[in-house]
């Protein structure tokens, strides 16, 4: 029957790894448990039998057949150059990393370098310089924009003035024309009035003349 404790004790005993407590338990089981004692006895017998096992002589055999030229028969991935090449590539990679090797490609040109890259201070300087350039360009654009605005405003003002002047001149001209027309109308009316007055006066004068002719000699008058 399988007993885990027995199995553990016997295997530890066979490996010579029994602790003091385990050894005590082992000896106790050997005395008290027949099954366990039989297992230990079998292992003992077999160990002894194995040590005394009769060694059959090795027959003559073809040892030469086990030897062949390893170098020529070894597949290509087992050649010695592969680990050497691998080591060399690893060393080269380490040198490239430690020396800050870098490759830069710009407009079809490749540049190889060993510098350690850009420091934080350099980056800050570059950023500040780029910001200054950006500010200057912005200011220039703003100035140009303001100039253009002022010029446009000036042109607009001039156009408005011109318009106002021309429109008021036209109005004045029309007003004067109206005035002249009114005056002419007035003069025409006056002339008609005076003409009627004169006719009336003539008629009165004529009436007065006929009255006088009835009284004596007619009054000589010439009408031209």
């Amino acid at each position: 029957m399988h007993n885990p404790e027995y199995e553990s004790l016997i295997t530890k005993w066979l490996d010579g790894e029994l602790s003091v407590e385990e050894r005590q338990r082992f000896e106790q089981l050997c005395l008290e448990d027949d099954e366990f004692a039989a297992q230990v006895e079998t292992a003992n017998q077999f160990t002894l039998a194995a040590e005394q096992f009769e060694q059959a002589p090795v027959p003559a055999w073809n040892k030469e057949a086990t030897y062949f030229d390893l170098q020529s028969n070894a597949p290509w991935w087992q050649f010695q150059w592969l680990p050497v090449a691998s080591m060399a590539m690893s060393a080269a990679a380490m040198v490239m990393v430690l020396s800050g090797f870098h490759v830069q490609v710009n407009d079809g040109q490749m540049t190889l370098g060993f510098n350690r890259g850009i420091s934080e201070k350099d980056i800050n300087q570059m950023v500040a310089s780029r910001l200054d350039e950006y500010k200057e360009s912005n200011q220039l654009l703003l100035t140009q924009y303001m100039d253009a605005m002022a010029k446009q405003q000036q042109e607009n003002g001039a156009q408005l003035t011109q318009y106002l002047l021309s429109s008021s001149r036209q109005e004045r001209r029309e007003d004067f024309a109206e005035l002249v027309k009114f005056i002419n109308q007035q003069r025409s009316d006056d002339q008609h009035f005076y003409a009627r007055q004169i006719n009336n006066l003539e008629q009165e004068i004529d009436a007065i003349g006929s009255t006088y002719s009835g009284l004596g000699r007619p009054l000589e008058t010439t009408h031209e």
Partner: protein
Amino acid sequence: MFEKRDEQLVAKARNGDKKAWFTLIQRYEQPIYQYGIRMTGNTHDAADLMQDIFVSVFKSLSNYRGEGAFRGWLFKIAHYRCMEFYRRKRPQQSLDECPEQISEEDTPEIGMLSDESSKQVLKAMQKLSVAQKAVVELKFFHHFTFDEIAQQLGLSSNTVKSRLYSALNKLKLDLEVENA
């Protein structure tokens, strides 16, 4: 004169030193052959398996990183070759399955052994499943720890312990029968 360490011989063999390779073979052919006999129960299969294992080890020498003992690495390859051998020879049989009842009479290989105790051990081992046999072989004959065996077989340490414990139950019965 001091013997060269396994790792030094492996390095030399990898660089084309034939003598170093044969020294390694000489050092390990006996344990590998015995491993083959106990795992296959057959001297012819054991000899074939031994050659197969050493060819495989030589091909894989470039993969040996020296992270563990060469001996452990060698037996790991031996185990894989042995499992392939079983799959090739008995494709229908599971590696966890115990073999069918074998003949009570000694096979020629067992008959070759003069020592009675060795005969009993060999017969008892042939009744274990391949998976149990591999654990018993590595534990009792090559004295690897359970963690090392687990690493070599690609299993958890607990699985290896369970397999050995169940194998001991079976071996106990067989040895008792043989002793009776």
